[in-house]
């Protein structure tokens, strides 16, 4: 096939709507899938890193998510919803990873202590609001951070968070409220 046709298709794929890409990927078109990987991979990476609290396992989690997505692409009824579908997969994989990590550590305490580098005395005096948020987020208890990330970055509803985390709705509300209050309080010093 002449190179010009390949190039033409590549640019068409790059500009194609999510629905068309998802449908072609479901048909086994790896090039269409690659466009989806490039389009939503960065957001999925950001998101997984925030849920996990570090980027140590981001590569693995995002890779697993896309492999699952590729295999299950045919089950996605509405291709235009591929973004939220991908976010859901990476949420699940990230949460699974957290559970495994906890089982491995064999502790029930979800309130992991802040790392030494996060301790207030190490924090540089001049810190932007964004950096402050990143630091306060990382120091939040894991269950609160998970709820906040699902709500604020993945835009889950309260009900969806409850389902995803196997928690009562009231617990999710409580965790979110605590996370917000802590963030509000901590962010007061950075404005």
């Amino acid at each position: 096939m002449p190179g010009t046709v390949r190039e033409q298709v590549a640019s068409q794929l790059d500009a194609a709507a999510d629905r068309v890409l998802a449908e072609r990927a479901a048909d086994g078109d790896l090039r269409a899938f690659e466009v989806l990987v490039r389009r939503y991979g960065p957001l999925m990476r950001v998101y997984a890193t925030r849920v996990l609290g570090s980027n140590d396992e981001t590569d693995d989690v995002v890779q697993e998510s896309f492999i699952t997505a590729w295999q299950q692409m045919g089950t996605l009824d509405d291709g235009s919803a591929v973004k939220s579908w991908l976010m859901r997969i990476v949420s699940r994989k990230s949460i699974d990873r957290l559970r495994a990590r906890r089982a491995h550590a064999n502790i029930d305490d979800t309130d992991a202590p802040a790392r030494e580098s996060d301790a207030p005395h190490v924090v540089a005096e001049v810190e932007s609001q964004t950096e402050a948020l990143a630091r306060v987020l990382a120091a939040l208890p894991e269950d609160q951070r998970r709820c906040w990330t699902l709500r604020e970055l993945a835009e889950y509803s309260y009900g969806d968070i409850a389902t995803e985390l196997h928690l009562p709705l009231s617990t999710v509300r409580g965790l979110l409220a605590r996370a917000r209050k802590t963030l509000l309080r901590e962010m007061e010093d950075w404005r």
Partner: protein
Amino acid sequence: MTELTPADERFVAFDLDDTVREQAGLNGHTIEQLSDYLDQGRVPADPRIDDSPECEIALRGLERLRRARQTLLDRDLERESLRDDGWVASILANITLEAHAGREIPLTHPSSTARLVVTEGAVRGILRETGDSMQNMFVGRCALVGDVGVPGAPISIRVDVTVFPGENIPLLAAQLRQAMYAALSKYTELVVVAIDITVSDLHALPDASVREIEH
């Protein structure tokens, strides 16, 4: 001159566990309620919130938090977008095409002991390539309808196509159908009785798509 406006006033740090104190400091509301109110764009307007200086301070805090969240997300995304391509290659390298191979379609072979097949996925690939080699259109989903496993059984093909605005849709559809028939007869022994092409305009809404089906 030194009077503090709500915007400058510090948010009252309250006990995280004490809802009563929280409500007392927020004119009877909770941070959760204020957060939901903000999510809804502060409509319908609630005077009990809007007219409360305490709530205003908390709302400003929540808005600041929201802006910081957006900046953080944008910054993270920018950093991720600047990464080298290694992670994409790594993902693609770990993907197996077998997942979409589909059914096996028999091909005749001179030897009675040999069994030759082409996969459904490969046929879909041929149909896609055929569409991609044509101008002014873009092929989406391709489906083989019928019992492709039985040699000689009549089957039909369903293809979704996006056509660029201003193109002659019936003409393009006819050209695509002809090209697909030619490709199928070249690479397969399928007995194709129909190629149904569903055309949608590139800029039209999905429900406004033109259905152009003819056998």
